């Protein structure tokens, strides 16, 4: 199963958008205007349709700023803290997130795809 296509279909349906206009690099909140209730529905749809356990905090990078604050206070490299919390994201993506953060919410469609692929792999699929 192509996870990007599966997630794109879910996003299109819940956000009432043409799936063709959703790309892997599209920002969920910044560009698609997804709100909290939309994210909840997206998480539920991913959980049921793709049959994987979903932790919303990880899927939607909800604790990102808290983690960065914690890293700053404990004088730890931020990328290391994020890597431990979000093992589904590559070092390259984490570095990109740190640069991108001042511009607003960083969550991209590709982050959801990474989470789903990582979780399925973890389940042994």
């Amino acid at each position, binding site marked *: 199963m192509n996870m990007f296509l599966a997630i794109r279909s879910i996003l299109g349906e819940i956000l009432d958008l043409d799936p063709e206009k959703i790309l892997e690099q599209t920002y969920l909140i910044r560009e698609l205007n997804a709100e909290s209730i939309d994210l909840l*529905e997206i998480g*539920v749809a991913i*959980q049921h349709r793709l049959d994987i356990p979903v932790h919303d905090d990880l899927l939607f990078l909800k604790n990102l700023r808290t983690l960065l604050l914690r890293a700053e206070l404990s004088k730890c490299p931020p990328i290391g803290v994020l890597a431990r919390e979000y093992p589904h994201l590559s070092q390259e993506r984490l570095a990109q997130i740190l640069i991108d953060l001042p511009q607003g919410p960083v969550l991209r469609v590709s982050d959801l795809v990474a989470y789903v692929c990582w979780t399925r792999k973890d389940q042994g699929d």
Partner: protein
Amino acid sequence: MNLRFTGNKALILGGSSAMGLALAELLLAEGLTVTLTHSSPKGLAAIAQRCPDLAQASPSLDLADLTSLDRLEPCLNCGVDYLVDLAQADHEGLLAAASEEGVRTYFESHVTNRLLLLKAVTRGMLYRGFGRLLHVSSAAAALPAPGQGFYAAAKRAAESCYLGLGLELGERGITSLSLRLGVVDAGRGGRFLDRQGLRKALAGKTLTVEQVASTLLFLLSDQSLAFTCTTLTMDAGLTARKYV
């Protein structure tokens, strides 16, 4: 009036209570599928005696034990359309004299773990686009007696959780309601009447199990879905009087 039900699967927490069992019978008569939870062997025996067909599939649920929520998973996987929440342990004692452990345990069980359970239930409802949450609260939430502080505070907190879920998820087909009951002549209510010698004084001001069960059935039906994000009181006028 014929009651209509959009969904067909009901989960009753605290289902081994007299109210839970009476409601289960009414729901079964309406053609719904019912799962009753129990929290003790005595509770399971009560289910086996009155609703023998439901005993085998009755999960054990102890709100104090977070891992026991896992036992609801088979039921949640099948989908729950109606949740009736009758689960509440009694805990009488003065708030001002409460132990740290007692405070933590009670509120973790009845507020934190209840909300985690509701989160799991509503995720399934959200996926299917329908769900009815019915919380059986108590008139004590508004008018507690001295020593009922724990119970009343937990009920109020639970009412707020149900209200919040109804507000957040209403547009996705999930409704919620809390029903504050007065003195029910069964279980702990019956023991209270006996212990305090109040049967005569409160004649006509108590509720029967049958009255409550029929009301709960109505409040689950499609006809009553507009009762949402609110709290109703059913106490035979008990708390409307200035003095008892």
